[in-house]
Protein backbone atom coordinates (compact mmCIF):
# COMPACT_ATOMS: atom_id res chain seq x y z
CA UNK A 1 0.00 0.00 0.00
CA UNK A 2 2.69 2.49 1.01
CA UNK A 3 4.82 1.35 -1.88
CA UNK A 4 2.04 2.07 -4.34
CA UNK A 5 1.56 5.46 -2.79
CA UNK A 6 5.21 6.43 -3.21
CA UNK A 7 5.21 5.30 -6.84
CA UNK A 8 2.24 7.50 -7.53
CA UNK A 9 3.90 10.36 -5.66
CA UNK A 10 7.12 10.00 -7.63
CA UNK A 11 5.23 10.00 -10.88
CA UNK A 12 3.47 13.14 -9.87
CA UNK A 13 6.72 14.84 -8.99
CA UNK A 14 7.62 17.51 -11.51
CA UNK A 15 10.36 16.45 -13.88
CA UNK A 16 12.91 18.93 -12.72
CA UNK A 17 12.93 17.80 -9.11
CA UNK A 18 13.21 14.21 -10.22
CA UNK A 19 16.24 15.13 -12.22
CA UNK A 20 17.61 16.99 -9.23
CA UNK A 21 17.08 13.94 -7.06
CA UNK A 22 18.87 11.85 -9.61
CA UNK A 23 21.85 14.19 -9.40
CA UNK A 24 21.79 14.04 -5.63
CA UNK A 25 21.63 10.29 -5.68
CA UNK A 26 24.48 9.89 -8.11
CA UNK A 27 26.57 12.83 -6.99
CA UNK A 28 29.28 10.52 -5.58
CA UNK A 29 29.68 8.95 -9.01
CA UNK A 30 30.09 12.36 -10.60
CA UNK A 31 32.49 13.64 -7.95
CA UNK A 32 34.60 10.51 -8.31
CA UNK A 33 35.32 11.35 -11.92
CA UNK A 34 36.55 14.89 -11.26
CA UNK A 35 40.30 14.19 -10.84
CA UNK A 36 40.50 12.08 -13.99
CA UNK A 37 38.44 14.47 -16.10
CA UNK A 38 40.39 17.45 -14.82
CA UNK A 39 43.62 15.72 -15.79
CA UNK A 40 42.38 15.00 -19.31
CA UNK A 41 41.27 18.61 -19.58
CA UNK A 42 44.72 19.90 -18.66
CA UNK A 43 46.86 17.26 -20.29
CA UNK A 44 44.89 16.72 -23.49
CA UNK A 45 42.34 19.45 -24.14
CA UNK A 46 44.28 22.59 -23.17
CA UNK A 47 47.12 21.69 -25.57
CA UNK A 48 44.53 21.23 -28.32
CA UNK A 49 43.59 24.86 -27.81
CA UNK A 50 47.30 25.67 -27.86
CA UNK A 51 47.36 24.71 -31.50
CA UNK A 52 46.58 28.36 -32.29
CA UNK A 53 50.23 29.20 -31.62
CA UNK A 54 51.08 27.59 -34.94
CA UNK A 55 49.36 30.58 -36.50
CA UNK A 56 51.37 33.12 -34.49
CA UNK A 57 54.82 34.57 -34.75
CA UNK A 58 56.27 33.44 -31.49
CA UNK A 59 57.81 36.25 -29.51
CA UNK A 60 58.93 35.30 -26.03
CA UNK A 61 59.16 38.93 -24.95
CA UNK A 62 55.46 39.52 -25.63
CA UNK A 63 54.48 36.17 -24.16
CA UNK A 64 53.43 33.24 -26.25
CA UNK A 65 49.72 33.85 -26.26
CA UNK A 66 50.06 37.59 -26.94
CA UNK A 67 52.35 37.14 -29.92
CA UNK A 68 51.20 38.55 -33.25
CA UNK A 69 49.11 36.53 -35.65
CA UNK A 70 50.86 35.54 -38.84
CA UNK A 71 48.23 33.41 -40.48
CA UNK A 72 49.70 30.52 -42.38
CA UNK A 73 53.27 31.89 -42.52
CA UNK A 74 54.71 29.15 -40.32
CA UNK A 75 53.24 26.53 -42.60
CA UNK A 76 54.37 28.27 -45.78
CA UNK A 77 57.94 28.47 -44.44
CA UNK A 78 57.83 24.86 -43.33
CA UNK A 79 56.68 23.52 -46.67
CA UNK A 80 59.14 25.68 -48.59
CA UNK A 81 62.05 23.93 -46.88
CA UNK A 82 63.19 20.49 -47.93
CA UNK A 83 62.80 19.53 -44.25
CA UNK A 84 59.06 19.09 -44.63
CA UNK A 85 59.58 16.63 -47.45
CA UNK A 86 62.35 14.72 -45.67
CA UNK A 87 60.53 14.31 -42.38
CA UNK A 88 57.27 13.28 -44.05
CA UNK A 89 59.04 10.83 -46.35
CA UNK A 90 61.05 9.29 -43.50
CA UNK A 91 58.08 8.99 -41.18
CA UNK A 92 55.93 7.29 -43.78
CA UNK A 93 58.59 5.06 -45.35
CA UNK A 94 59.83 3.74 -42.02
CA UNK A 95 56.27 3.04 -40.95
CA UNK A 96 55.48 1.21 -44.18
CA UNK A 97 58.54 -1.02 -43.78
CA UNK A 98 57.76 -1.56 -40.08
CA UNK A 99 54.16 -2.48 -40.82
CA UNK A 100 54.75 -4.80 -43.79
CA UNK A 101 57.87 -6.68 -42.72
CA UNK A 102 57.00 -6.42 -39.03
CA UNK A 103 53.64 -8.09 -39.55
CA UNK A 104 55.19 -10.93 -41.55
CA UNK A 105 57.93 -11.51 -38.96
CA UNK A 106 55.60 -11.39 -35.97
CA UNK A 107 53.12 -13.68 -37.66
CA UNK A 108 55.84 -16.20 -38.54
CA UNK A 109 57.13 -16.00 -35.00
CA UNK A 110 53.66 -16.62 -33.54
CA UNK A 111 53.08 -19.62 -35.81
CA UNK A 112 56.41 -21.14 -34.84
CA UNK A 113 55.68 -20.54 -31.15
CA UNK A 114 52.42 -22.40 -31.66
CA UNK A 115 54.32 -25.46 -32.85
CA UNK A 116 56.21 -25.73 -29.59
CA UNK A 117 54.52 -28.19 -27.24
CA UNK A 118 56.85 -28.13 -24.26
CA UNK A 119 55.12 -25.67 -21.93
CA UNK A 120 58.28 -24.60 -20.14
CA UNK A 121 60.27 -23.95 -23.28
CA UNK A 122 57.35 -22.03 -24.74
CA UNK A 123 57.16 -19.80 -21.67
CA UNK A 124 60.92 -19.33 -21.77
CA UNK A 125 60.95 -18.26 -25.41
CA UNK A 126 58.01 -15.91 -24.82
CA UNK A 127 59.75 -14.33 -21.85
CA UNK A 128 63.02 -13.76 -23.72
CA UNK A 129 61.58 -12.37 -26.93
CA UNK A 130 59.36 -9.87 -25.10
CA UNK A 131 62.24 -8.67 -22.94
CA UNK A 132 63.55 -6.06 -25.43
CA UNK A 133 60.15 -4.37 -25.42
CA UNK A 134 60.63 -3.67 -21.73
CA UNK A 135 63.90 -1.80 -22.05
CA UNK A 136 63.96 1.98 -22.32
CA UNK A 137 65.25 3.51 -25.54
CA UNK A 138 68.09 5.12 -23.60
CA UNK A 139 69.43 1.70 -22.70
CA UNK A 140 68.86 0.56 -26.29
CA UNK A 141 71.01 3.45 -27.47
CA UNK A 142 73.81 2.15 -25.20
CA UNK A 143 73.45 -1.35 -26.62
CA UNK A 144 73.65 -0.01 -30.17
CA UNK A 145 76.59 2.19 -29.21
CA UNK A 146 78.48 -0.83 -27.88
CA UNK A 147 78.08 -2.37 -31.33
CA UNK A 148 78.62 0.68 -33.51
CA UNK A 149 80.99 3.04 -31.73
CA UNK A 150 83.72 4.05 -34.18
CA UNK A 151 86.71 3.47 -31.85
CA UNK A 152 85.51 0.76 -29.52
CA UNK A 153 82.43 -0.78 -31.14
CA UNK A 154 82.14 -4.53 -31.57
CA UNK A 155 81.45 -4.23 -35.30
CA UNK A 156 84.42 -2.03 -36.14
CA UNK A 157 86.86 -3.80 -33.81
CA UNK A 158 85.84 -7.41 -34.24
CA UNK A 159 83.36 -8.13 -37.03
CA UNK A 160 84.90 -6.03 -39.80
CA UNK A 161 88.48 -7.34 -39.21
CA UNK A 162 87.07 -10.89 -39.38
CA UNK A 163 85.63 -10.07 -42.75
CA UNK A 164 89.00 -8.73 -43.81
CA UNK A 165 87.96 -5.07 -43.72
CA UNK A 166 90.50 -3.10 -41.75
CA UNK A 167 89.07 0.36 -42.04
CA UNK A 168 86.32 1.02 -39.54
CA UNK A 169 83.11 2.73 -40.57
CA UNK A 170 82.06 5.97 -38.89
CA UNK A 171 78.55 4.70 -38.24
CA UNK A 172 77.29 7.79 -36.47
CA UNK A 173 78.13 10.10 -39.35
CA UNK A 174 77.17 8.02 -42.37
CA UNK A 175 73.47 8.52 -43.05
CA UNK A 176 73.14 5.74 -45.62
CA UNK A 177 73.40 2.87 -43.12
CA UNK A 178 70.73 4.10 -40.77
CA UNK A 179 67.58 2.91 -42.48
CA UNK A 180 68.87 -0.63 -41.98
CA UNK A 181 70.13 -0.08 -38.46
CA UNK A 182 66.92 1.55 -37.25
CA UNK A 183 64.77 -1.09 -38.90
CA UNK A 184 66.79 -3.84 -37.27
CA UNK A 185 66.60 -2.16 -33.86
CA UNK A 186 62.87 -1.67 -34.26
CA UNK A 187 62.34 -5.35 -35.05
CA UNK A 188 64.62 -6.40 -32.21
CA UNK A 189 62.44 -4.41 -29.85
CA UNK A 190 58.97 -5.09 -31.24
CA UNK A 191 58.70 -8.43 -33.09
CA UNK A 192 58.55 -10.53 -29.93
CA UNK A 193 55.94 -8.25 -28.43
CA UNK A 194 53.64 -8.23 -31.43
CA UNK A 195 54.08 -11.95 -31.98
CA UNK A 196 52.46 -12.42 -28.55
CA UNK A 197 49.46 -10.48 -29.83
CA UNK A 198 49.12 -12.87 -32.78
CA UNK A 199 49.84 -15.84 -30.56
CA UNK A 200 46.91 -14.86 -28.34
CA UNK A 201 44.69 -14.90 -31.42
CA UNK A 202 46.10 -18.30 -32.46
CA UNK A 203 45.16 -19.78 -29.10
CA UNK A 204 41.56 -18.94 -29.89
CA UNK A 205 41.42 -21.23 -32.94
CA UNK A 206 39.39 -24.35 -32.30
CA UNK A 207 41.55 -27.49 -32.29
CA UNK A 208 38.78 -29.33 -34.15
CA UNK A 209 39.66 -27.60 -37.41
CA UNK A 210 43.10 -29.16 -37.25
CA UNK A 211 41.75 -32.58 -36.30
CA UNK A 212 39.42 -32.51 -39.28
CA UNK A 213 42.21 -31.39 -41.61
CA UNK A 214 44.42 -34.16 -40.32
CA UNK A 215 41.75 -36.76 -41.05
CA UNK A 216 41.68 -35.42 -44.58
CA UNK A 217 45.43 -35.95 -44.73
CA UNK A 218 46.59 -32.33 -44.72
CA UNK A 219 50.20 -31.82 -43.66
CA UNK A 220 51.03 -29.39 -40.89
CA UNK A 221 52.25 -26.78 -43.36
CA UNK A 222 49.05 -27.12 -45.37
CA UNK A 223 47.06 -26.71 -42.17
CA UNK A 224 48.89 -23.49 -41.40
CA UNK A 225 48.27 -22.19 -44.89
CA UNK A 226 44.62 -23.21 -45.17
CA UNK A 227 43.40 -22.91 -41.58
CA UNK A 228 45.64 -20.75 -39.42
CA UNK A 229 46.25 -17.88 -41.83
CA UNK A 230 42.65 -17.47 -43.05
CA UNK A 231 41.35 -17.55 -39.48
CA UNK A 232 43.89 -14.93 -38.43
CA UNK A 233 43.07 -12.68 -41.37
CA UNK A 234 40.62 -10.45 -39.46
CA UNK A 235 43.15 -9.82 -36.68
CA UNK A 236 45.90 -9.13 -39.19
CA UNK A 237 43.69 -6.72 -41.14
CA UNK A 238 42.61 -4.91 -38.04
CA UNK A 239 46.09 -4.47 -36.58
CA UNK A 240 47.47 -3.38 -39.94
CA UNK A 241 44.75 -0.81 -40.48
CA UNK A 242 45.21 0.58 -37.00
CA UNK A 243 48.94 0.99 -37.61
CA UNK A 244 48.20 2.62 -40.94
CA UNK A 245 46.09 5.08 -38.94
CA UNK A 246 49.23 5.94 -36.96
CA UNK A 247 51.51 6.17 -39.97
CA UNK A 248 52.12 9.87 -39.35
CA UNK A 249 53.53 9.21 -35.90
CA UNK A 250 56.92 7.71 -35.19
CA UNK A 251 58.59 6.17 -32.18
CA UNK A 252 60.37 9.29 -30.97
CA UNK A 253 62.87 7.38 -28.83
CA UNK A 254 63.97 5.15 -31.68
CA UNK A 255 64.70 8.03 -34.01
CA UNK A 256 66.13 10.41 -31.42
CA UNK A 257 68.04 8.26 -28.91
CA UNK A 258 69.40 5.45 -31.05
CA UNK A 259 71.20 7.71 -33.59
CA UNK A 260 72.39 9.75 -30.57
CA UNK A 261 70.71 12.85 -32.00
CA UNK A 262 73.50 13.10 -34.56
CA UNK A 263 72.94 15.99 -36.97
CA UNK A 264 74.89 14.23 -39.75
CA UNK A 265 72.18 11.61 -39.89
CA UNK A 266 69.28 14.06 -40.37
CA UNK A 267 68.62 12.94 -43.94
CA UNK A 268 67.69 9.39 -42.96
CA UNK A 269 66.77 9.59 -39.27
CA UNK A 270 64.66 12.74 -38.90
CA UNK A 271 60.94 12.16 -38.50
CA UNK A 272 58.13 14.59 -37.70
CA UNK A 273 58.44 13.84 -33.99
CA UNK A 274 62.18 14.48 -33.79
CA UNK A 275 61.77 17.64 -35.88
CA UNK A 276 59.17 19.04 -33.48
CA UNK A 277 61.34 18.16 -30.51
CA UNK A 278 64.44 19.82 -31.97
CA UNK A 279 62.40 22.95 -32.62
CA UNK A 280 61.27 23.02 -29.01
CA UNK A 281 64.72 22.44 -27.51
CA UNK A 282 66.17 25.26 -29.55
CA UNK A 283 68.20 23.53 -32.22
CA UNK A 284 65.45 24.23 -34.75
CA UNK A 285 62.82 26.85 -35.50
CA UNK A 286 59.99 26.84 -32.96
CA UNK A 287 57.39 28.36 -35.25
CA UNK A 288 58.03 25.82 -37.96
CA UNK A 289 58.18 22.93 -35.58
CA UNK A 290 54.85 23.92 -34.03
CA UNK A 291 53.44 24.02 -37.54
CA UNK A 292 54.91 20.56 -38.15
CA UNK A 293 53.24 19.34 -34.96
CA UNK A 294 49.86 20.66 -36.05
CA UNK A 295 50.34 19.19 -39.51
CA UNK A 296 51.00 15.83 -37.81
CA UNK A 297 48.01 16.08 -35.46
CA UNK A 298 45.57 16.93 -38.22
CA UNK A 299 46.75 14.48 -40.88
CA UNK A 300 47.11 11.84 -38.14
CA UNK A 301 43.55 12.47 -36.98
CA UNK A 302 42.15 12.16 -40.50
CA UNK A 303 44.09 8.92 -41.04
CA UNK A 304 42.86 7.39 -37.76
CA UNK A 305 39.27 8.20 -38.72
CA UNK A 306 39.73 6.75 -42.22
CA UNK A 307 41.44 3.63 -40.90
CA UNK A 308 38.71 3.08 -38.38
CA UNK A 309 36.04 3.60 -41.01
CA UNK A 310 37.73 0.91 -43.11
CA UNK A 311 37.99 -1.46 -40.15
CA UNK A 312 34.30 -0.95 -39.48
CA UNK A 313 33.48 -1.96 -43.01
CA UNK A 314 35.61 -5.08 -42.72
CA UNK A 315 34.42 -6.14 -39.31
CA UNK A 316 32.34 -4.07 -36.96
CA UNK A 317 33.53 -5.81 -33.81
CA UNK A 318 37.13 -4.91 -34.36
CA UNK A 319 36.61 -1.21 -34.95
CA UNK A 320 37.90 1.17 -32.33
CA UNK A 321 34.63 3.10 -32.44
Amino acid at each position, binding site marked *: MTQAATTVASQKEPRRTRKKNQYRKYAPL*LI*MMIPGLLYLLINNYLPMAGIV*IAFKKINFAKGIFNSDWTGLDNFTYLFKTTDAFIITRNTILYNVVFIVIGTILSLACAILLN*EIRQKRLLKGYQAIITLPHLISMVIVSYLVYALL*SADTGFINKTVLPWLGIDEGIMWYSEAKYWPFILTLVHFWKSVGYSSIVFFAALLGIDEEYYEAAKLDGASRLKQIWHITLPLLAPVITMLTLLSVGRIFYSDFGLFYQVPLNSGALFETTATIDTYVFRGLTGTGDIGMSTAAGVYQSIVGFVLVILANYTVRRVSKDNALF
Partner: protein
Amino acid sequence: MRNDSRGLTWFSHIAMFLFAAFCLIPFVLLISASFTNQSAIVANGYSFLPSEFSTDAYRYLFDRGSDIARAYGVTVWITVAGTLIGLSMTALLAYPLSRSETPHRNPIMFFVFFTMLFNGGLVPTYLVYTQFFELKNTIWALIVPGLLMNGFYVMLMRTFFQSLPKALIESAQLDGAGEYRTLWSIVLPLSTPVIATIGLFLTIMYWNDWQNGMIYITNPELFSIQNLLNRIMQDVQFISTNLSSNAGSAMEQMPTDSVKMAIAVIGVLPILLAYPFFQKYFIKGIMIGAVKG
Protein backbone atom coordinates in the same frame (compact mmCIF):
# COMPACT_ATOMS: atom_id res chain seq x y z
CA MET B 1 47.91 -37.42 -30.23
CA ARG B 2 48.65 -33.93 -31.55
CA ASN B 3 49.15 -33.81 -35.24
CA ASP B 4 52.67 -32.49 -35.31
CA SER B 5 55.20 -32.61 -38.04
CA ARG B 6 58.57 -33.51 -36.67
CA GLY B 7 60.48 -31.38 -39.14
CA LEU B 8 58.41 -28.31 -38.43
CA THR B 9 58.74 -28.76 -34.68
CA TRP B 10 62.50 -28.94 -34.94
CA PHE B 11 62.57 -25.96 -37.24
CA SER B 12 60.46 -24.00 -34.73
CA HIS B 13 62.82 -24.84 -31.91
CA ILE B 14 65.87 -23.82 -33.89
CA ALA B 15 64.28 -20.61 -35.16
CA MET B 16 62.99 -19.58 -31.74
CA PHE B 17 66.30 -20.41 -30.13
CA LEU B 18 68.13 -18.20 -32.62
CA PHE B 19 65.62 -15.40 -32.20
CA ALA B 20 65.88 -15.60 -28.42
CA ALA B 21 69.67 -15.47 -28.71
CA PHE B 22 69.38 -12.43 -30.99
CA CYS B 23 67.27 -10.72 -28.31
CA LEU B 24 69.71 -11.49 -25.50
CA ILE B 25 73.07 -10.96 -27.19
CA PRO B 26 73.23 -7.16 -26.89
CA PHE B 27 72.79 -7.48 -23.11
CA VAL B 28 75.71 -9.90 -22.93
CA LEU B 29 77.87 -7.42 -24.81
CA LEU B 30 76.80 -4.61 -22.45
CA ILE B 31 77.53 -6.57 -19.28
CA SER B 32 80.81 -7.93 -20.57
CA ALA B 33 81.94 -4.46 -21.63
CA SER B 34 81.26 -3.09 -18.17
CA PHE B 35 83.63 -5.69 -16.69
CA THR B 36 86.47 -5.04 -19.11
CA ASN B 37 89.66 -3.20 -18.32
CA GLN B 38 89.77 0.28 -19.89
CA SER B 39 93.02 -0.26 -21.79
CA ALA B 40 91.70 -3.55 -23.16
CA ILE B 41 88.64 -1.74 -24.50
CA VAL B 42 90.81 0.88 -26.15
CA ALA B 43 92.92 -1.86 -27.77
CA ASN B 44 90.26 -4.43 -28.71
CA GLY B 45 86.94 -2.66 -28.47
CA TYR B 46 83.87 -4.03 -26.68
CA SER B 47 83.62 -7.80 -26.85
CA PHE B 48 81.44 -10.64 -25.66
CA LEU B 49 83.99 -11.94 -23.21
CA PRO B 50 86.04 -9.45 -21.21
CA SER B 51 89.52 -9.64 -22.74
CA GLU B 52 90.88 -8.38 -19.42
CA PHE B 53 88.48 -8.75 -16.52
CA SER B 54 88.22 -5.77 -14.21
CA THR B 55 85.70 -4.27 -11.83
CA ASP B 56 87.26 -0.80 -12.02
CA ALA B 57 84.17 0.72 -13.57
CA TYR B 58 81.92 -0.43 -10.75
CA ARG B 59 84.44 0.54 -8.12
CA TYR B 60 84.68 3.97 -9.71
CA LEU B 61 80.90 4.37 -9.73
CA PHE B 62 80.64 3.11 -6.18
CA ASP B 63 83.17 5.67 -4.96
CA ARG B 64 81.47 8.60 -6.64
CA GLY B 65 77.99 7.19 -6.62
CA SER B 66 76.01 9.95 -4.92
CA ASP B 67 74.57 11.17 -8.23
CA ILE B 68 73.59 7.66 -9.20
CA ALA B 69 72.01 7.01 -5.83
CA ARG B 70 70.04 10.24 -6.08
CA ALA B 71 68.92 9.46 -9.63
CA TYR B 72 67.79 6.06 -8.42
CA GLY B 73 65.86 7.73 -5.63
CA VAL B 74 64.15 10.06 -8.12
CA THR B 75 63.24 7.15 -10.38
CA VAL B 76 61.85 5.04 -7.54
CA TRP B 77 59.86 7.97 -6.17
CA ILE B 78 58.26 8.95 -9.48
CA THR B 79 57.53 5.32 -10.29
CA VAL B 80 55.76 4.65 -6.99
CA ALA B 81 53.91 7.96 -6.85
CA GLY B 82 52.99 7.96 -10.53
CA THR B 83 51.71 4.40 -10.52
CA LEU B 84 49.62 4.85 -7.37
CA ILE B 85 48.11 8.19 -8.39
CA GLY B 86 47.59 7.02 -11.96
CA LEU B 87 45.87 3.80 -10.93
CA SER B 88 43.58 5.61 -8.49
CA MET B 89 42.57 8.22 -11.05
CA THR B 90 41.97 5.58 -13.70
CA ALA B 91 39.79 3.47 -11.40
CA LEU B 92 37.84 6.49 -10.12
CA LEU B 93 37.04 7.53 -13.67
CA ALA B 94 36.45 4.04 -15.05
CA TYR B 95 34.01 2.95 -12.33
CA PRO B 96 31.28 5.58 -12.89
CA LEU B 97 31.68 5.08 -16.63
CA SER B 98 30.94 1.40 -16.15
CA ARG B 99 27.64 2.17 -14.37
CA SER B 100 24.66 2.81 -16.58
CA GLU B 101 23.04 5.02 -13.89
CA THR B 102 25.72 7.71 -14.11
CA PRO B 103 24.21 10.94 -15.46
CA HIS B 104 25.70 12.19 -18.76
CA ARG B 105 27.63 8.98 -19.19
CA ASN B 106 27.83 9.11 -22.97
CA PRO B 107 29.17 12.63 -23.40
CA ILE B 108 31.77 11.90 -20.73
CA MET B 109 32.74 8.69 -22.52
CA PHE B 110 33.27 10.70 -25.66
CA PHE B 111 35.33 13.25 -23.75
CA VAL B 112 37.64 10.44 -22.61
CA PHE B 113 37.67 8.65 -25.94
CA PHE B 114 38.45 11.69 -28.08
CA THR B 115 41.81 12.07 -26.32
CA MET B 116 42.84 8.82 -27.99
CA LEU B 117 42.23 10.25 -31.45
CA PHE B 118 43.58 13.76 -31.38
CA ASN B 119 46.27 15.56 -29.48
CA GLY B 120 47.71 19.03 -29.43
CA GLY B 121 51.27 17.88 -29.87
CA LEU B 122 54.47 18.48 -27.98
CA VAL B 123 54.92 22.25 -28.20
CA PRO B 124 51.45 23.26 -26.91
CA THR B 125 51.71 20.65 -24.14
CA TYR B 126 55.06 22.06 -23.13
CA LEU B 127 53.64 25.58 -23.04
CA VAL B 128 50.65 24.51 -20.93
CA TYR B 129 52.86 22.85 -18.35
CA THR B 130 55.48 25.58 -18.23
CA GLN B 131 53.38 28.75 -18.67
CA PHE B 132 50.21 27.84 -16.75
CA PHE B 133 51.53 25.40 -14.20
CA GLU B 134 55.23 26.17 -13.87
CA LEU B 135 56.18 22.54 -13.58
CA LYS B 136 59.63 23.14 -15.00
CA ASN B 137 62.36 21.75 -12.77
CA THR B 138 60.01 20.24 -10.22
CA ILE B 139 59.59 16.57 -9.46
CA TRP B 140 55.98 16.79 -10.70
CA ALA B 141 57.25 17.41 -14.21
CA LEU B 142 58.44 13.82 -14.18
CA ILE B 143 55.09 12.50 -12.96
CA VAL B 144 52.27 14.56 -14.43
CA PRO B 145 52.77 15.36 -18.14
CA GLY B 146 51.48 12.66 -20.43
CA LEU B 147 52.00 9.64 -18.24
CA LEU B 148 49.60 9.81 -15.32
CA MET B 149 46.45 8.53 -16.98
CA ASN B 150 45.28 7.86 -20.50
CA GLY B 151 42.03 7.17 -22.26
CA PHE B 152 43.04 3.70 -23.32
CA TYR B 153 43.61 2.44 -19.76
CA VAL B 154 40.34 4.02 -18.65
CA MET B 155 38.51 2.14 -21.43
CA LEU B 156 40.31 -1.10 -20.58
CA MET B 157 39.37 -0.87 -16.92
CA ARG B 158 35.82 0.20 -17.65
CA THR B 159 35.31 -2.82 -19.92
CA PHE B 160 36.55 -5.07 -17.14
CA PHE B 161 34.27 -3.46 -14.52
CA GLN B 162 31.32 -3.90 -16.86
CA SER B 163 31.96 -7.62 -17.06
CA LEU B 164 31.39 -8.00 -13.30
CA PRO B 165 27.89 -9.20 -12.32
CA LYS B 166 25.58 -6.25 -11.73
CA ALA B 167 23.81 -8.06 -8.91
CA LEU B 168 26.94 -7.74 -6.75
CA ILE B 169 26.85 -3.97 -6.90
CA GLU B 170 23.11 -3.84 -6.36
CA SER B 171 23.21 -6.09 -3.31
CA ALA B 172 26.08 -4.14 -1.81
CA GLN B 173 24.10 -0.95 -2.18
CA LEU B 174 20.96 -2.55 -0.71
CA ASP B 175 23.10 -3.35 2.30
CA GLY B 176 23.82 0.35 2.57
CA ALA B 177 27.23 0.65 0.93
CA GLY B 178 27.88 4.00 -0.73
CA GLU B 179 29.57 4.30 -4.11
CA TYR B 180 33.08 4.61 -2.69
CA ARG B 181 32.51 1.65 -0.42
CA THR B 182 31.17 -0.41 -3.32
CA LEU B 183 34.17 0.46 -5.47
CA TRP B 184 36.71 -0.21 -2.75
CA SER B 185 35.30 -3.39 -1.18
CA ILE B 186 33.43 -5.06 -4.03
CA VAL B 187 34.61 -3.93 -7.44
CA LEU B 188 38.36 -3.49 -6.92
CA PRO B 189 38.99 -6.81 -5.13
CA LEU B 190 37.32 -8.59 -8.05
CA SER B 191 39.35 -6.66 -10.62
CA THR B 192 42.89 -7.62 -9.63
CA PRO B 193 43.84 -8.89 -13.12
CA VAL B 194 43.16 -5.59 -14.84
CA ILE B 195 44.61 -3.56 -11.97
CA ALA B 196 47.79 -5.65 -12.00
CA THR B 197 48.12 -5.25 -15.77
CA ILE B 198 47.63 -1.50 -15.84
CA GLY B 199 49.73 -1.06 -12.71
CA LEU B 200 52.56 -3.02 -14.30
CA PHE B 201 52.41 -1.01 -17.52
CA LEU B 202 52.39 2.26 -15.57
CA THR B 203 55.36 1.10 -13.51
CA ILE B 204 57.35 0.21 -16.63
CA MET B 205 56.39 3.49 -18.28
CA TYR B 206 57.59 5.56 -15.33
CA TRP B 207 60.75 3.55 -14.81
CA ASN B 208 61.69 3.93 -18.47
CA ASP B 209 60.62 7.51 -19.03
CA TRP B 210 63.33 9.91 -20.16
CA GLN B 211 61.25 12.24 -22.30
CA ASN B 212 59.69 14.33 -19.53
CA GLY B 213 63.07 14.70 -17.88
CA MET B 214 64.63 15.82 -21.13
CA ILE B 215 61.89 18.37 -21.78
CA TYR B 216 61.16 19.79 -18.34
CA ILE B 217 64.26 19.19 -16.21
CA THR B 218 67.56 21.04 -16.45
CA ASN B 219 68.59 20.71 -12.82
CA PRO B 220 70.84 17.60 -12.50
CA GLU B 221 69.59 17.02 -8.95
CA LEU B 222 66.20 16.04 -10.35
CA PHE B 223 67.54 13.68 -13.00
CA SER B 224 66.03 10.23 -13.05
CA ILE B 225 68.32 7.32 -13.83
CA GLN B 226 67.25 7.47 -17.49
CA ASN B 227 68.07 11.16 -17.74
CA LEU B 228 71.43 10.59 -16.14
CA LEU B 229 72.18 7.88 -18.70
CA ASN B 230 70.94 10.11 -21.45
CA ARG B 231 73.14 12.97 -20.39
CA ILE B 232 76.19 10.77 -20.00
CA MET B 233 75.77 9.32 -23.47
CA GLN B 234 75.37 12.72 -25.07
CA ASP B 235 78.15 14.34 -23.19
CA VAL B 236 81.17 12.50 -21.88
CA GLN B 237 82.30 15.72 -20.22
CA PHE B 238 79.32 15.41 -17.93
CA ILE B 239 80.90 12.38 -16.29
CA SER B 240 84.10 14.20 -15.49
CA THR B 241 82.47 17.36 -14.18
CA ASN B 242 79.46 15.95 -12.38
CA LEU B 243 80.40 12.47 -11.34
CA SER B 244 83.85 13.17 -10.00
CA SER B 245 85.14 15.35 -7.23
CA ASN B 246 88.32 16.45 -8.99
CA ALA B 247 87.44 17.27 -12.56
CA GLY B 248 90.18 17.60 -15.13
CA SER B 249 92.70 15.05 -13.96
CA ALA B 250 89.85 12.62 -13.44
CA MET B 251 89.44 12.13 -17.16
CA GLU B 252 92.68 10.23 -17.59
CA GLN B 253 92.24 8.01 -14.58
CA MET B 254 88.65 7.14 -15.09
CA PRO B 255 87.75 4.08 -17.15
CA THR B 256 85.43 6.09 -19.42
CA ASP B 257 84.28 3.41 -21.83
CA SER B 258 83.57 0.74 -19.27
CA VAL B 259 81.98 3.26 -16.88
CA LYS B 260 79.49 4.16 -19.59
CA MET B 261 78.46 0.56 -19.93
CA ALA B 262 78.50 -0.01 -16.18
CA ILE B 263 76.02 2.82 -15.63
CA ALA B 264 73.78 1.34 -18.30
CA VAL B 265 73.98 -2.03 -16.53
CA ILE B 266 73.01 -0.39 -13.26
CA GLY B 267 70.09 1.27 -15.04
CA VAL B 268 68.78 -1.92 -16.60
CA LEU B 269 69.63 -4.40 -13.85
CA PRO B 270 66.53 -3.94 -11.68
CA ILE B 271 64.34 -4.72 -14.68
CA LEU B 272 66.38 -7.76 -15.68
CA LEU B 273 66.30 -9.07 -12.10
CA ALA B 274 62.60 -8.45 -11.55
CA TYR B 275 61.54 -9.68 -14.98
CA PRO B 276 61.38 -13.42 -14.17
CA PHE B 277 58.87 -12.62 -11.43
CA PHE B 278 56.53 -10.43 -13.39
CA GLN B 279 56.98 -11.74 -16.94
CA LYS B 280 53.85 -13.90 -16.57
CA TYR B 281 51.73 -10.81 -15.93
CA PHE B 282 53.53 -8.83 -18.58
CA ILE B 283 52.73 -11.40 -21.27
CA LYS B 284 49.13 -11.71 -20.03
CA GLY B 285 48.90 -7.93 -20.12
CA ILE B 286 50.00 -7.83 -23.75
CA MET B 287 47.27 -10.34 -24.53
CA ILE B 288 44.58 -8.35 -22.66
CA GLY B 289 45.65 -5.11 -24.29
CA ALA B 290 45.55 -6.81 -27.68
CA VAL B 291 41.87 -7.58 -27.44
CA LYS B 292 40.98 -3.98 -28.06
CA GLY B 293 43.67 -1.64 -29.15
